[in-house]
């Protein structure tokens, strides 16, 4: 089964993970239409 991106949906949680994992945040604004 192909791997997919595991998106965060909560901004504060993404920042918390960023600090804990020493990774930068990739914030994608998308339009589903």
């Amino acid at each position, binding site marked *: 089964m*192909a*791997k*997919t*991106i*595991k*998106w*965060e*949906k*909560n*901004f504060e949680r*993404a*920042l918390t*993970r*960023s*600090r804990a*994992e*020493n*990774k*930068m*945040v*990739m*914030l*994608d*604004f*998308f*339009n*589903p239409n």
Partner: protein
Amino acid sequence: MGAVTYPNEKVVEFIERHMVPIQVLFDSQPLAAKFNIQWTPTVITLDEEGKEHHRTVGFLSPEEFIPSLMLGLTKCHFDRGKFNEAIEMSEKILKDYPKSDAAPEAVYVRGVALCKSTHSADPLKEAYKRLMAEYPSSEWAKRAQPYRLL
């Protein structure tokens, strides 16, 4: 992006290794206002404090998106004075994606990071020469023109 770039295996692996990905609707508040989102897709590279260092607007293929993310990481490091890390990531762009749109800016940022870390102007002139040799029509070759006089 959702149909072509995000399902790409190399894109998934790069993001998993280097980034914390978050996806929100284009009109999701307060983020859309905070980052002044006017069009999609808009992809922004942030540091752990939520400060923006790089953004792209519009579709990018996997071959352009990965080096664009790498440029975002380069600029995160550079903006925070981590010049060795910025140099290392910019060199990876130039090694792995030399024909990408991110490559000319990587040459420029690498030159400036080397200048700031070595306190020598020589890397700026070298960046100018490389830009003129390899990316003469890029905007970054134009921006580096003053360095020819160093």
